[in-house]
């Protein structure tokens, strides 16, 4: 966008009345309220998922440790995965979409506000359903929450306890919620753009979410279909995944990863879009390679649905299949490299300043880069046989999913917190948060790469004594990383209470975009009359 002029109408402030109390949040159809609900839900479950991670690391700090029973350990790793993916990251990125996209494209609200309300309010019941078996177990019913690993592989998931049934119901609810949010975002971007915001002037965050929404519509139904088949296998005598009845457990893996691999990009793409905006703001330069990034999103989106079986190299696949999935997976590194070059091009010779959002954005580039490179070794079908069931893989996907999406969400949280609350957070606490994250994260996962290369098996509650040093370091790192997240909570509270310096409309000197032409915080109703974008 070469120049942006927004028109904030005088009497918009007259419309700034909103219902008070709980009713406001329960019945709201306002995109900002729903965005905030999504983000608060995501942060809450980020902490819950983190708590499961700390339990896992507490168990693994010494060999032959007894912090958790093996049953509890299995439940903790499963819930850590499911909660982080479905209840933390996906809601937070949906929250940013709801809050920011209408502001970015000059729309008065999301296209389907009531659907939006419904989409969010499906999440809390889903979260309750997921952990409910844990409460039932306290009363002696069943054997606790799902314990199969977040991939819910058959035949284990066909035989496992009632936690699996609850998890399937939770996934169906979450899927319905995600589909509603995706449909809403696509309709908003297609139909609600202000005059002058053409598709190739669309902010990159909106583009990245558009691709994400298409991916969700294409792949989440496959997981729901798989979940329903698993449910009928467990209770109604079908044999989709049971070899004895003519089914095939590997079919589950195909269904799961047909969803599961695009899911990685569903988590990644929105933050990749945000990253471009943040880098551009703190480099005080326009985004480099706008078109290239849009095409890269499309390429990543298309490739992501045809590479899923690289998660299954060790399931006994013919050579031809392994070769196909190996080369197609490696091909994804090309559009991703385009993104990296555009990010680096954006900050190249810029007038950089290093506020907290920029620190997290640069951390994203570094950590996600390591995640991508280690992914290339795993994409090699031959090397994967060695590394697949080791901690190397665990470290790899944490570098991609924490290093990418979570660092991106942190950067975006600090970037937009003053915009949303109208007040600055504590820059000092923000910097501490960043450095503790970087130190804690690398201390957690670099030893896991080394342990994995040395042959340490993942998923297991205990380990041989020669890996004790790696696991000790990893646990200490995880405790630092976990404690650091309290600084994020502190900063949210600081900005929310509003006793700090008020934020200007532009917030950051180099911030670009329609949302930064509005006051901070933006009025309850914005762009009731459409802005003109030249």
């Amino acid at each position, binding site marked *: 966008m070469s120049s942006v002029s927004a028109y904030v109408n005088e009497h918009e402030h007259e419309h700034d009345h909103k219902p008070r109390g709980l009713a406001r949040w329960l019945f709201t159809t306002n995109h900002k309220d729903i965005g905030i609900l999504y983000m608060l839900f995501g942060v809450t479950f980020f902490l819950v998922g983190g708590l499961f991670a700390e339990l896992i690391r507490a168990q693994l700090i010494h060999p032959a440790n007894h912090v958790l029973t093996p049953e509890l350990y299995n439940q903790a790793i499963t819930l850590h995965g499911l909660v982080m993916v479905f209840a933390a990251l996906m809601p937070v990125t949906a929250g940013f979409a709801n809050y920011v996209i209408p502001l970015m494209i000059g729309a008065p609200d999301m296209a389907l506000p009531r659907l939006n309300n419904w989409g969010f309010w499906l999440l809390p019941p889903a979260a309750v359903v997921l952990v409910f078996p844990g409460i039932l177990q306290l009363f002696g019913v069943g054997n606790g929450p799902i314990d199969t690993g977040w991939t819910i592989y058959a035949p284990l998931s066909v035989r496992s306890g009632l936690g699996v049934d609850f998890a399937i119901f939770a996934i169906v609810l979450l899927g319905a919620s995600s589909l509603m949010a995706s449909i809403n975002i696509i309709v908003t971007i297609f139909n609600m753009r202000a005059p002058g915001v053409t598709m190739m002037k669309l902010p990159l965050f909106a583009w990245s979410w558009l691709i994400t929404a298409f991916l969700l519509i294409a792949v989440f139904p496959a997981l729901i279909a798989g979940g329903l088949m698993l449910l009928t296998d467990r209770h109604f005598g079908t044999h989709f995944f049971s070899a004895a009845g003519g089914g095939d457990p590997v079919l589950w893996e195909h269904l799961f990863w047909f969803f599961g691999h695009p899911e990685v990009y569903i988590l990644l793409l929105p933050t990749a879009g945000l990253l471009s905006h943040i880098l551009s703001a703190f480099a005080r330069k326009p985004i480099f390679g706008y078109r290239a990034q849009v095409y890269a999103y499309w390429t990543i989106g298309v490739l992501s649905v045809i590479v899923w079986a690289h998660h299954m190299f060790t399931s006994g696949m013919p050579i031809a299949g392994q070769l196909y999935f190996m080369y197609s997976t490696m091909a994804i590194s090309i559009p991703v490299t385009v993104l990296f070059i555009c990010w680096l091009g954006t900050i190249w010779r810029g007038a950089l300043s290093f506020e907290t959002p920029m620190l997290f954005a640069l951390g994203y580039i570094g950590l996600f880069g390591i995640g991508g490179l280690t992914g290339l070794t795993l994409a090699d079908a031959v090397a994967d046989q060695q590394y697949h069931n080791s901690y190397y893989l665990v470290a790899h996907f944490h570098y991609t999913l924490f290093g990418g999406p979570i660092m991106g969400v942190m950067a975006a949280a600090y970037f937009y917190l003053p915009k949303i609350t109208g007040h600055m957070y504590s820059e000092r606490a923000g910097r501490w948060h960043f450095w503790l994250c970087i130190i804690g994260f690398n201390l957690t996962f670099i030893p896991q790469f080394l342990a994995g290369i040395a042959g340490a098996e993942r998923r297991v509650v205990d380990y041989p004594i020669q890996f004790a040093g790696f696991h000790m370091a990893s646990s200490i790192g995880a405790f630092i990383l976990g404690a650091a997240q309290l600084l994020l909570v502190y900063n949210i509270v600081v900005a929310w209470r509003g006793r700090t310096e008020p934020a200007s409309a532009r917030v950051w000197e180099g911030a670009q975009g329609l949302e930064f032409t509005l006051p901070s915080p933006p009025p309850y109703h914005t762009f009731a009359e459409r802005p*003109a974008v030249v």
Partner: protein
Amino acid sequence: MKLDKGFADTKKTEVPAVASRAGANRRLAWLLALVAAGFLGFGFALVPLYNTFCHLTGFNGATGTAAAALTPVDRTRWVTVEFTGMVMPGLPWKFRPAQRRVRVHPGETAIARYYATNLGDRTFDGRAIMSVSPEVAATHFEKIECFCFHQEALEPGQTREFSVEFFVTPGLPKYVTTMTLSYAFFPSVERGDDRSQPRS
């Protein structure tokens, strides 16, 4: 100046624009919901598609069945067929091949035997699921008669001999000189499960 003009234009058309926009939004939303429902259907369609795909390509070691060996015998080369067997959890059986390997010419019919003993204290029904590796050999392995076509029952303590009659098609790539035939005996999922059309 330019800005004001732009706004004058949009203001004039605002009321009809909102009404038609709501209709357009709803139409697009339903269209996308339909696409999502289509992908749900695709998820279920993957089940038969996947089975067909396995049989066409030998993916997962799925093999074929033939009524009789009508193909000419290729006496210029030998193929070694090795046998293994295992029992899945829930079936207290002992199950082993009578021979470790046989050597056959492609196209030549051969019979291999297995022994199974029920170590449990009641009658158990089992069903054998077979696979062939390497996968490239699976499409060239044809069974004429096999105990895996049927559900099998064993009384407590009973031992029975099971046999499989098979041939390897001459189309087998020359570089495959050894293939392994593996059976896994599963507890039968229901009584009277005896389908004439076997899956593998």
